[in-house]
Each structure stands twice: as structure tokens, then as C-alpha cells.
């Protein structure tokens, strides 16, 4: 079971709190939107980043983030 971070692109507005909270996971593209460093669609959230990820999910002003458990 891995935990992944999902961006609801219909809501994301490039606010950028998530990138600040998860700099090891996310970068910023040319337009201000989050880009996973791993290139995956829904990047894996490592154990140590789970708290930060929860903060990001709770605090995204557009509520564009969610964490979920994936089989892989």
C-alpha cells in the first residue's frame, strides 16, 4: 500500500501552498502549477512527508488535493 497525492486539475489554480509544503515532492511549472518531480501523475508520498502532505491537502484554498492509498 502506497499513499499517493492526487491533484484535481479542474480545481487547481496554481496557488502554490502545496509546493511550499512539499518541496521534495513538487516543483512549479512555467505557469505556476505544481509538477511532481517524479514525473508521475499522482506522486507517491513517502512516509516522512505524510504530515506535510496532510497539511497541504487541508490548506489548499481550492481543495484541489487529496491523498489516497493505492495498491502500488
Amino acid at each position, binding site marked *: 500500500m502506497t499513499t499517493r497525492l492526487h491533484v484535481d486539475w*479542474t480545481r487547481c489554480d496554481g496557488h502554490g501552498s502545496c509546493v511550499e509544503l512539499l518541496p521534495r515532492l513538487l516543483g512549479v511549472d512555467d505557469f505556476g502549477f505544481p509538477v511532481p518531480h517524479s514525473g508521475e501523475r499522482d506522486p507517491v508520498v513517502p512516509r516522512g512527508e505524510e504530515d506535510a502532505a496532510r497539511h497541504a491537502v487541508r490548506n489548499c484554498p481550492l481543495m484541489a488535493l487529496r491523498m489516497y492509498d493505492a495498491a502500488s
Partner: protein
Amino acid sequence: MSTPVATTPALSRRLLGGAGTDRAAHLARYGAPPHLRLDDLLQAVTESGLTGRGGGGFPTATKVRAVAAGSRKPVVVGNAMEGEPLSSKDAVLLTHNPHLVLDGLEVLARAMHAKRAILAVGPEIDAGPVTAAARGRRLDVVPLEGGFIAGQETALVNQLDGGAAMPRDPFTRVTESGVGGRPTLVLNAETLAQVALVARYGAAWFRSAGTGDDPGTSLFTITGSVASPGVVEAERGSVLREVLAPAEPLRPAAVLVGGYHGAWVPVADLDVRLTGAELAPYHATVGAGILHVLDGGTCPLDFAADVVAYLAGESARQCGPCLNGLPRLATDLKRLAVGVRDPDLPSEVRRMSALVTGRGACAHPDGSARFVASTLDVFRGHVSAHLGGWCPSGRQPLRVGRAS
């Protein structure tokens, strides 16, 4: 239940041998539509190996099973939006064989005890014949507004819910919650027609055409530099050259397989089979069966720039990367096409293509990126030439000047 083989439709006329709106002629040609229980229908469709004909190529039985497993009565939707400008197979199918499409919709709706059965029709399609064919049937023919992405699965569901043609976050699958919150089965109109055939004649008959991995026939729309553009029916896995032959290609340089979200097959490789495996090196798939022939006299970079400008305009403009990235791609491709001699252009285009891929609610940016990447690969000769100030297709004027 299954009709004797002697009266089953010939290979090239399974779908295109329709009787139009004439119900009696339709029944005479195809036999009565069977009423199947879900188990029997699922078994037949599973064994048939039928995959979606709308572009996704997803195993139909898997989709049906997922929707049928829901706790609420489902909604079955036939997708005849045909948002892709190059495609006309669904238009042709709905004119020449509307009854077969509706038979498929009905057999599924009945077996699944669906709450609603809907055929969504785009504005490019004449809804007259199918509306006539729908009389007396328990289903709704719903005309919707068009656009390139209007037929995208979640965008279609959103419209049927009264909203705009805008995709939804794919995290919630429509098979679990779609129209009205119900499990929703969305199948392309041609896929429905294929289901109607499988229900009548069985899986073995269906598999008598095509290949083991990709059985049956499907419709192909042939456009571009050909003497006789139009829709043909061919076995799955056919050789590309043979599928194109009836349309008589003129001076082909390459074929765009899969439409504006597809990829190029150069003229030297026209003997490739239209299978997943043989198309993979080109990063192409059959998709919804569009085969667009580009002739040697047309600059492919010009063509691509126009296509990407169109695709950028067709974005739902919901998702930042697509809304911003596609116009950037369109601009850069245009610069390449007109001959701006900026050596960074190709790498910048590739970078932007990668940047928009996988970062949207639907596959519009991904498909656009695929088309762009294929263009740069297959026509790398043109790219170098343009950067050097000339065009192999003789495009004029080609601006000769420094990077700007």
C-alpha cells in the same frame, strides 16, 4: 438465440450493411434483436474480445461488468458526439444503420436493468434517422452541443447532468458515479452496434474477423490527400495500405493514424498492420479509426501548427497546464512552420509537450502532446530544413531570418 451463419453479414458489411431507418428491412437483414440476461450478454461480450471503438480501445466487457456491479440502477449512454473534425464514422453509422446502434443500447439497458438509456448525438451528425429509428424504443436521443472534447466521457456525463462540456476529475470513475450519481456505462455508437452483433451472432462469429488479440471489424474514416474520402469497414489488424486502397491515396508522404491526438506513419511504412503491437513504435493507436493522408506538397509543420492551434482553442480551459501549455505549443510550432530560425525551438516544443502530459483532468493535453512529439520525430528532416531556412515541401514564404 444465435442466427445461422449463412445469414450473418459479410465481413465488409457487418456495420455498413444497414437498412437505414427501415425497421422491417433491418429485421430481415439482421434478425430479431435478442433479449439476453446480463450473465449471458457478459459472457458473449467477454468471449468476443470486443474493445471500445471510440478511441480508448478499452475492453467492453470490463466496462459493462464494472457498471453492472454498482448498487444503483445504472445509466447506459451511447456516445455519438464525434467531436473530432476528421471523423465521420459515427455520422455514417447513424445514417445507414441507426437500428443496429439502438439495438445495442437496448440489449445492454435491458440486461443491466438500466434506469435510463440515452444516445448522445453531436451537432455534426444528422439526428433525423436515429430519432426516427428510436420511435417506440425505451430510450432518449439527446442532441448536445459540440466541440472537440464534448465527447470525452466525463464531459459527456457533465452535459447530461445539465452542465457544460467540461471534463470532471477522473478520480471518481463514471462507472461508479456518473449521470445523476448513478453508475454509468458510456460506449461509442460503433461499439454499441458491435455489441448488437455479438448479442445476435455470438462471440465465435465476431472473432471470425480480425486478429486474436483484436477481433472483429471496425470503421475507418479516410480523409486528406485521397481521391475518394469516406468511411470504410475493415477487419481489425488489417494492413494500413490495404485499408487505404479503396480511397486511392494521392502522393502520400505520411498517414496520421488516430486523428489529431494520433501519430504519423511515414509512407515507407504503409505495410504496417493496424495492431497495437505494430503501431507501438510510432506511438500510435487505431483510436477511433481516423486515417488522414498527408501529401508531399503540404508542409507537415504547417499542418501541425494549424492542428495544435485548433486543439489549443478546443481546451475546456479548466486545467492550468492545458490552458496555458497548448497555446504555447501552438505558438512555437507556428514559429517553426514559418521558418523562425531559433535552434532551441525543437527542444522547447518537446519540453512543453512533456510538461502538459498527464497534468489535466482529461487526455486532451496528452493526446495533443503525442501528436506534436510524433510530428517532430517523423518529420525531423523538415524541422532541420526549416531551421536552415528552406522547406522540403516547398512551403513559401519561408521567412529567412534570425531567431526572434
